[in-house]
Every structure is written in structure tokens, then in C-alpha cells.
């Protein structure tokens, strides 16, 4: 049995330690906000926070997650919408919406470490793929979230 801390809750799981956390979240626990996009840590649709840092959960095994704090999109805005989510709404970011959980988790992690990211910082740190091409709106929303967080 593995014990994982997910969104502040402990889960005892009878799974192989090499199971990617992505599939633990989706298929064992039923938290489907974290998405499968590529399985090789290329696209970032599966981005979660591990001890506060954006991590691609398709290449992060359950065994390695023991003893760490996992936060998913469902946990990010559990009490009230996170500033990033509010900014996403204000800037009309989502189209199909599939990649947006990962984009939001990546942006929230960036802002936690760098409260006023420049465009160059965003280019360097936000490498998640969006096939709908919402990048210009994501960029604007990250700047907006940075401003909202300072209010």
C-alpha cells in the first residue's frame, strides 16, 4: 500500500509504485481535472503541484510521490477561485478547455515563485501545449493574475 497526500487528504492505495500519478488521480481517485495529453511530459496537460512546484504527473510515479504534497486543479480553487482562475475567466482564455487545467497549474506555480513575471519569463516557464492557440490570452491572463494577487 502506498500513502499519498492529495489536496490535503491522505489516500491509501494498492497500486504498483511505478504507476504515474496522472493515472492514480484519474482512475484510482476520480480526480479527472488533470488531463492525459501525451504521456511523455511534453504537453503539460497533466501538470500538478508537488510540494508547490509544477510537475508533469504523467512522468511522476506514485512511489516518488510518497511523503510529498500533491495539489490538483480541483484542490487549487477548492475554497474560492484562485487568482489565476479568475484571470482566466476575465481574459476569456479557454476554447476547447482540455489543456487549461495544466496551463492554470503551471501559471499558478510560476506566480508563486515569481510574482511579477516578464514576457520572457512566461515564454521560458510556460511550455504547455494548447492546440486551440490560447497562448496570447494565457500571457495576458498571467499578467492579470499577477496584478490581482497584489490587490
Amino acid at each position, binding site marked *: 500500500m502506498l500513502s499519498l497526500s492529495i489536496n490535503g487528504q491522505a489516500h491509501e492505495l494498492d497500486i504498483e509504485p511505478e504507476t504515474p500519478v496522472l493515472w492514480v488521480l484519474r482512475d484510482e481517485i476520480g480526480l*479527472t481535472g488533470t488531463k492525459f495529453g501525451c504521456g511523455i511530459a*511534453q504537453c503539460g496537460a497533466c501538470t500538478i503541484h508537488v510540494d508547490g512546484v509544477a510537475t508533469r504527473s504523467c512522468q511522476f510515479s506514485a512511489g516518488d510521490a510518497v511523503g510529498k504534497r500533491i495539489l490538483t486543479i*480541483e484542490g487549487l480553487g477548492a475554497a474560492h477561485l484562485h487568482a489565476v482562475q479568475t484571470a482566466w475567466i476575465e481574459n476569456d*482564455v*479557454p476554447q*476547447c478547455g482540455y489543456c487549461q487545467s495544466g496551463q492554470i497549474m503551471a501559471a499558478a506555480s510560476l506566480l508563486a515563485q515569481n510574482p511579477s513575471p516578464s514576457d520572457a519569463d512566461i515564454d521560458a516557464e510556460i511550455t504547455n501545449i494548447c492546440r486551440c492557440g490560447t497562448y496570447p490570452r494565457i500571457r495576458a491572463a498571467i499578467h492579470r493574475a499577477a496584478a490581482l494577487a497584489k490587490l
Partner: protein
Amino acid sequence: MNAIVSRRSFIAASLSAAGGLVVMVAIPRFASAVPLGPEPWGPEELTTANEVNAFVVVEPDGTILLRIAKSEMGQGVMTSLAMIVAEELECDFAKVKVEYASATRNFMDGGVYGDMQTGGSSSVRRSRVSLQQAGASARARLISAAATRWGVAPIACVARGGSVFHEASGRSAVYGQLVGDAANVSLREEPAIKTPEQFRLIGQRQARLDTPVKVTGAAKFGIDTRLPGMVYAAVANCPVFGGKAKSYDEAAIKNKRGFIAVVPVENGVAVVADRFWRAKEMVAALPIVWDEGAAAATDSEKFRADYRAALDGPLTNAAKRGDAKSALAASPKIVEALYEVPHLAHAPMEPLNATVHWRPDRIDAWIGTQSADAALKLAAEVGGVDPRNVFIHNCYLGGGFGRRAVNDELRQAVQVSKAIAKPVKLVWTREQDIQHDRYRPQAALRLKAGLGADGMPTAFDFRTAVGSITRSLGWGAASSGVEPSAVEGLSNVPYLASALNVDCLLKNTHVPVMFWRSVGSSQNAFAVESFIDELAHAAGKDPLDYRRALLAGKPDFLAVLDKLADKGEWGKALPVGSARGLAIHESFGTIVGEIAEVAVSKSGEVRVERVVACVDCGHVVNPLNVEMQIESAVLYGLTAALFGEITIKKGAVEQGNFDDYQIARMADAPTIETHFALSGGGKWGGIGEPGTPPIAPAIANAIFTITGKRIRSLPLKNAALGA
């Protein structure tokens, strides 16, 4: 169903009675506040309580529920179509909620929702009038119900903001009080619909209704479906299209944890397990012997040579105006160029998947499909169940772009569920998605023009060799030798020349081809708009001026060009190593012009800094959504222009994931501005696709200005642009 039961409880109860299946509904935190719930699929009853008509439901609390018969794949259709109904219904748009129309009802109720196929940038264009009529008709019934109740003439009443008013007596009633009577009203004649100058909602910026559920992880895509007792399937499709599994060694995996079954499916083999990750690992470990067939000897280079050679004829004429042959012979100068484009994958972010519960007398399928009607018929046929007992629970689509118009994943999921008699979620990996797409066809085009002494074209002679989509899909033989999508943008080239000849050869390989965002325009605009630039340079003229001269007498094109040149700062100096490129193209009823500001580094790296677009789609339903679609279409086309290339070796696709099928990311994304030059009138153009065709030629034309190198083959990553 006459009993008034909530839809959710109905579904849960009926499934329980039929097979102990209860849909697990995760109650979202913001469900009551959002106009679109996390589960967008509609009711399965043929009629529900509080319906005014099939499209409009008025809840007693005044909530307006509108049924949308097109699929939401990111293009904003649930919002724009709802706006069209609400415009006529005269309701408070803040109280509007939306769900999908039922494909089963559409099947059983004489096509009440029309064609549910979503594609071709057609949703607004083709359903606007009927949706306006549905809204107007519901409004007239509500007014009639109020008038009857008050004993006054309907004409003395007005509807506004979700209520009917009789101003002479000061009486009013909210729609929720009238819906019961309104459903029984029969109108002597259907009311007239509004004309554009009467619109109050259409044309106004509206935030999309699906945004709230898409920032919390709550929105349910097909892949998020969870059913009690559900098992998972992972698939290995035969690497060479058209091949099949000869044998497999089940013993190699059957002792692995969670193994349930190996099931042969269309095009390959599925492994079923208790968890998807286990199924995926097992299918990768399953030894399969494939019968790959003769196509295993082919590759992209052979196709390229074949398409090039095909241009020498014989070809089938697709369009003819004047005598191009004589005009070319008489021209003092001939310009000729060969353009080539590769196969492209759609690569929507959500890999293909379908969750199916097959039973002998009923099929339930949860899927994101661009065609709920076709999905219903496919599931019925494959599952051997009466289509009246097939229920397609359409989900949010994690991207479509044409790929989800044909549901290969549904066929396989029905096969697996039927074989094992359990509900199953079948998911393709990204590798299966890239390697078993139905691709944008590879093509070769040879464009020739005669130029007069003034440098202006006397004749165009365009030839294309390209795969037939209808043949590939088995939808028809295209026996005339021409299909419209193959020559769109060629046959209707807007530029003036005294003679035009367009010839076409539809030539398929074993690689399946299909609709890819903007279809034939995706390659034809690249060729034509690059070629017009070549002609301008050959004539020593500015590409904007040259196009203006060739578009004389086309005021809508000229209006787009002029606004574009102004907003895009055409002619204004840029730093060394940077330039602007221009392209304009009409597709799906809409003209889009784009100026790309491009920089090429000394080592040959291309960066698109800024794109300015100008759009004439006639009328706009939601300006915000048009801007979003232009941004999206530009980036979709930019990815293809810079990186997009599916290559075939030994009959199979060489690429497999986003590491070798590269997609533009944040650092590649230009700023994008959208402007309008609307011609209005009777024109209602599409918007999901028309922003894609101009971007590749706009970039290529800028690169020529910077480097002097003419791009005639995509993608740009293969071009040597370094100094």
C-alpha cells in the same frame, strides 16, 4: 415520458432498471451558477417538461434552457448559437443555460434538430435561420399564452427580458408562468424573424458560457467518463494503414495484474484491463504479428514523386474561363512554380476515446464527437442495436479540428464492450493518435501565369494532385474526378485574369485523409498567395498594390485589404532581418487577410512576431468569439507552417508524439490582432477555419522579403534559411 422527473434522476433510474448502472455524477462546486454544466449532454427523453419547443425550455424559475445541436470543440458554438435563439426569444441572456440536443431525439423525431454534423465552419451559417425561427416561434407562443390568459389580442402584447407585457393594462407575466400554456399554442403562422438592423444581442461581445467549467477542471470531456464496473481498453492499431493483426501472443500478458482480455478490433487489437495504465503497458508488451500488406513498401518520398509526376497529366478540368492556353502562348512572360505540402495530423489535445456500455437492447456511449448523428448510427450498426435505443452522451470535445468528424474510436469501443459485455472506456495513446489519424492530404500544385507587358496576369493555369477525402472516407467515388474541397481557393481564385484553367487529379495512397481545419484551402491558399507574391515581384510591384489591382471590382476584398494595410502598418520600416508578408483568402464564406511580421535570424531561425488579421464574415454574432477563433486559426496554421509534417516510411507514420510532431508553444506565439471590415448584406460567413489559410503564405512571403528565398514547400523547418 409524461412524469415530471429531473433528467439526471431519470437517467440514473432507467439505467439502474436496465442493468444496475448508475452514472456517477460528480456535483461540481459551481454547478448552480454556471450557464453550462460540467456534463453538457442533453436529455434522452423525446420531450421534457417545460418545453416550448424542441430548442427552448423555460423552467418555472425563469431559467431559459436552450438545446444546441452542434458540438462544442472550442469554437464557441454553444454561446453563439444560444445568442441567436435568445435574440428572438427576448429573454435575459444572463439567465440562459445550454445543453446539447439529443441525437436520439433527432433520429426519432424527424430530424427536428437538423444536421448535427459540426464542421466546415457551418454552424452559424447553416443553422442561423432555423434557430432564429425557433426563438421567434417560442416567443410568439409565450405571447399568445399571455394574451389568451388576459383576454387581449397578442398584437397588444410585447415580450422583453423574459416577460410578456400588456402595456395598456399594465399587466405582465414572466415566461416561467406561461410555459405550460405556451407549449399547447398553435400559431396560425410562424412569426417573421428579425433582420440584422433589429438585433440587440447578436453582434455584442458575450463571454463564453463554457468558460466557468473550463477553469476548474469540472468540464467533462469524453475521457473523463467514469461508470461503475467500467474497465479500460488500450489499442494497438496496425502500424501500416489497411493492415491487420495476423496473430498475437496473449500468454505474454495474461498473468499481469489487472488483465481482463485481448479483443480484436477494427484495424488492430485492444487489451482490456482494470485500469488504463495497466492496459496501456500490456498492449505495449503484447507480441503482435501484423499482416501489413503491399503498402508497407511505400513512403513519403515516393508519394512526393508520384504527385509531382501526376501534374504532367492527364488531369480533370475543374474550372475554365476563357482560353488560358492561347493567352499563355501569347504572353511575353511566363511564371511557373511548384508547391508541395505534406500530410498533417490534427493532434487535438484530448486523445481519441469513447466509453461504451453495450447491452443487447441498448447502447450508451460517452464521447466527444463532431457528429452525434453519425455516431449514433455507427454505434447502432457496429453494436447490432436498434438506433432508437442508442444514446450518444456528447461531451465537451478536447479539440476537434475535423478529427472527431469520424469516430474510429467509437467503433472500436463498441466492439470491445460487446465482446466482453461490460462498460469500457477505450483510449488511444498520443502515439496512436498521431500514427492513426485521417490526415490533411499530401499535395503538389503547379501554378502558371502569363504576364502581360504591364506585369499583370493574362491567364492562370493551376494544377493540383491531391488525395480525395470522399474516396478515403468511403463517402463516394468522386467519379467526376473533382471534389470541391480539392480545388477550393483555386477554382474560385478572386484575382482578375482574362483566362483561368484549373485541373485536378484525385490520387489516393493507402494513407487515410480527411478534413483538417480549413481543408483544401490549407494547401491551396499557401500556393496561390505565395504565387501572387511571386508575380508581384516578377512585375516589380508592391504585393499589396498588385493584389489591389487584381481585385478591382471586388469591394469586399478591397475593404479587407485596405483596413489590413492600415492596421498592419504595411510599408512601415522594420529592423534589418524583419519584414511583413501579406496574404488574403476567402473560405467558408469569409474573407480573411493577414499580415505577418517575421524575423529571420542569421542562423535561419524564423520567428513570427506579430500577426494582424482583418475579417469580412458579413455579420458577426459574437465579436469576442471571432477574435478568439482568428487567434486560434492563426496559431493552428502557424504550427503547420513552421513544423507540421507527417512522413511515411515503410508504409507507417514516422512521428509518434509531441517530441517529433512539434506544436507551437508560448515562446513561438506572436501577438495577434483582429480587425473587421464587414460587408453585411446577405453574407454570413463561417469563422472556425477561415483564419488558418492565409498565415502560411503570409509568413512565407515575409521570409522571401527578408532572405530572397522563396518557400515552395512546407514546413519551414526543412528550409535552409541561414546566411
